């Protein structure tokens, strides 16, 4: 049990950015560009507190958890809201808050002079807050709330420059595509809740062990949860939103790709791992979707002209690796890759942002020769690229090799082949981008006049470059022969229950498999060098020769066209039908009632003569009718008398 002070400090990790969001949203107009200092001040505290949480988890050797009731249903249970920080969550907290801090530092330079500077920082903080909340969530309901907030923030940030139609469309696309996954996730949550009566991750895992939910129902619920992860983590077949999301500001892309949005899906699978392992079918689906996505996205990245899109497809591909790792039972390796990927992917985006900031173009073929103009950006990007390509001894090597080796040693040879093929493609596409941007002669005026970015941008890049090299060194496997321990693998380990269910035996470090993947990576780099530096004429020639394949890859396997022709068109057809029904049937009904009422009123207005005596006559006649109905003789007599007197007067008048 933690003291109240510790609980407050831990609860403050997600709450601080949330408070910063409200401050910046309310006073952004006054703060203007000073908003960044408010945001960074708050973020520093979140980072420090995250490290404190990590320290507490290490010291106590058990999860931090506390909760209060959000909705209390009395006898019927309730929905608690609280904090559950185990080793996995603690590492994620540090990664998310740290990367977010780096990106907020960098954004101060990149977004300088933006019209909605303070609003940008406000949403950035809400984004971070919801991701931190998602990480500490102990149950599905809390996770789902943060999950949706993450989706909302990605919409707002991708559409930050909403004056551009492309940014608007991309924001909507991201929101709608991930929403498909969200809906599936929600159905999955309801299925778990119906079957087990709880939404807590631990509770559901235990209930499933006890047999409250099992068989095909369990598999269906787990797969639905995984569909949610597919949407957020941009896996096949819901990957189409991520490349378009490049329309947002580059630091946002870095944040989405490194720490927040897309990591959420992988994190969800890891968080609910004890549930996933109980359904072998679901685990296989995770592994195959992951491996296929990794390969598919890597092929798409081969031909892209837009530097950010190359990196975006690389993210999709790397997330596929993480899913593959989780799916084949290499829990630690998958999460280790998520952790390493956060640093080198953030760095890649910050490098791309630095280039874009310097020459205001995304197009690789308008760059060239930037190595001399921007040496710091060049070297940091090479480090990030080597780490991404999985070259020894950089960070990416350790985690990627662990995943690939696990796939091989668990006898998933198809998955291994896909993964090793992806290593080659990865090394090729990232160095193609680097060689196109930095070597050779400047292809445009902008490239020739580019200058290195200011210190506020390069300092985070250098910090991340150091981490891209060294972050993997906390997880060097024991069998490697160095006198270090596998801290990460020992720390972020699957539960004992998951280990028993999966029957995964610990493998020694295989030098052969590692050597193969490094050599394949080097071969990819070598091919990129040959095609884009040594013989620059080769690439266009190949593109012409393999025109069909080139277009196929450039169009992203025609997924957008396919979805456009089927789902989007169907949705539009339904929309038009509903609109027609609304306009013709419902509109006609409402209009008809309105016209009928109008006509009736037109007819009845003649009754309103404005003469008091007419009204009095109505009253008399009405009373008379009522009297006749009620059978009151006296009223009838009075009426008869009135009539008599009238007749008499008329008779007298006629005679006079």
């Amino acid at each position, binding site marked *: 049990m933690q003291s109240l002070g510790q609980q407050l400090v831990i609860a403050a990790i997600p709450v601080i950015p949330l408070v910063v969001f409200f401050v910046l949203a309310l006073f952004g107009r006054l703060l203007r560009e000073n908003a960044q200092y408010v945001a960074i001040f708050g973020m520093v505290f979140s980072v420090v507190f995250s490290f404190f949480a990590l320290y507490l988890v290490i010291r106590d050797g058990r999860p931090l958890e506390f909760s209060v009731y959000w909705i209390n249903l009395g006898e019927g249970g309730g929905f608690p809201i609280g904090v559950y920080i185990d080793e996995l969550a603690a590492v994620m907290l540090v990664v998310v808050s740290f990367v977010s801090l780096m990106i907020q530092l960098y954004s101060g330079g990149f977004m300088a002079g933006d019209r909605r500077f303070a609003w940008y920082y406000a949403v950035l903080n809400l984004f971070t807050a919801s991701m931190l909340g998602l990480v500490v969530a102990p149950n599905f309901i809390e996770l789902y709330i943060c999950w949706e907030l993450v989706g909302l923030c990605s919409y707002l940030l991708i559409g930050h420059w909403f004056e551009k139609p492309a940014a608007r469309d991309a924001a909507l696309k991201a929101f709608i595509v991930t929403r498909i996954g969200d809906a599936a996730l929600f159905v999955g949550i309801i299925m778990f809740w119906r079957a087990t009566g709880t939404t807590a991750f631990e509770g559901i895992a235990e209930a499933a062990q006890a047999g409250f939910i099992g068989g095909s129902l369990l598999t269906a619920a787990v797969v639905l949860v995984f569909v949610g992860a597919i949407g957020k983590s941009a896996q096949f077949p819901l990957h189409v939103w991520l490349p378009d999301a490049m329309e947002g500001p580059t630091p946002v892309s870095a944040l989405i790709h490194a720490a927040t949005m897309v990591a959420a899906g992988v994190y969800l699978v890891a968080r609910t791992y004890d549930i996933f392992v109980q359904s072998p079918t679901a685990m296989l689906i995770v592994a195959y979707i992951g491996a296929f996505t990794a390969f598919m996205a890597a092929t798409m990245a081969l031909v892209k002209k837009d530097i950010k899109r190359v990196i975006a497809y690389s993210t999709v591909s790397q997330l596929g690796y993480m899913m593959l790792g989780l799916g084949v039972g290499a829990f630690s390796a998958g999460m280790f890759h998520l952790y390493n990927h956060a640093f080198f992917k953030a760095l890649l985006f910050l490098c791309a942002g630095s280039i874009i900031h310097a020459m205001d173009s995304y197009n690789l073929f308008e760059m060239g020769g930037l190595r001399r103009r921007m040496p710091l950006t060049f070297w940091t990007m090479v480090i990030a690229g080597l780490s991404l390509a999985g070259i020894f001894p950089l960070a990416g090597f350790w985690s990627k090799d662990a995943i690939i080796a696990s796939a091989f040693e668990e006898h998933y040879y198809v998955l291994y082949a896909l993964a090793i093929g992806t290593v080659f493609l990865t090394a090729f596409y990232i160095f193609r981008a680097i060689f196109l941007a930095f070597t050779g002669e400047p292809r445009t005026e902008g490239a020739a006049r580019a200058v290195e970015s200011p210190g506020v941008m390069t300092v985070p890049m250098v910090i991340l470059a150091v981490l891209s090299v060294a972050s993997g060194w906390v997880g060097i496997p024991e069998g490697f022969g160095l006198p270090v321990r596998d801290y990460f693998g020992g720390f972020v380990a699957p539960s004992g229950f998951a280990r028993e269910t999966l029957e995964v035996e610990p493998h020694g470090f295989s030098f052969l498999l590692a050597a193969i993947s490094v050599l394949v990576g080097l071969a990819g780099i070598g091919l990129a060098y040959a095609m884009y530096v040594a013989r620059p004429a080769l690439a266009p020639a190949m593109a012409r020769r393999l025109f069909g394949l080139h277009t196929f890859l450039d169009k992203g396997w025609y997924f957008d066209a396919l979805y456009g022709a089927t789902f989007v068109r169907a949705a539009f057809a339904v929309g038009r039908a509903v609109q027609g029904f609304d306009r013709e049937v419902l509109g006609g009904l409402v209009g008809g009632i309105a016209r009928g009422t109008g006509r009736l009123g037109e007819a009845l207005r*003649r009754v309103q*003569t404005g003469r*008091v*005596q007419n009204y009095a*006559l109505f009253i*008399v006649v009405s009373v008379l009718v009522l009297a006749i109905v009620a059978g009151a003789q006296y009223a009838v007599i*009075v009426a008869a008398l009135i009539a008599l007197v009238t007749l008499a007067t008329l008779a007298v008048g006629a005679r006079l």
Partner: protein
Amino acid sequence: MQQLVEQLNAQIPLEGYLTVAAIMFAIGAWGALIRRNAVVVFMCVELMINAVNLTLVAFADFLPGAGGAGAGYAVLIIAIAAAEVAVGLAIVLAIFRTRRTVNIDEVDSLRG
């Protein structure tokens, strides 16, 4: 002679009062519906009110169980009628000032 005096002193039956009241009410209602002059219409309304008053007083006398409540109501109605006349005549005066007529046929500005 003696017989006539006895007859005159004898209790008038309830039906007598009610018949008179009915005739008064009918005349009042007739005038209110027929006459054009607003002042005459008012007088007719007074006639109707007093017809009702008459029935109230008559019932108060003939229904001992009511404890004379009808007479109390009659006093109340007289007071209200006085107030109503004051307001009504003020309206008639106001109409006369603006339109130079008290002919209620011509006062129809609320026509739909």
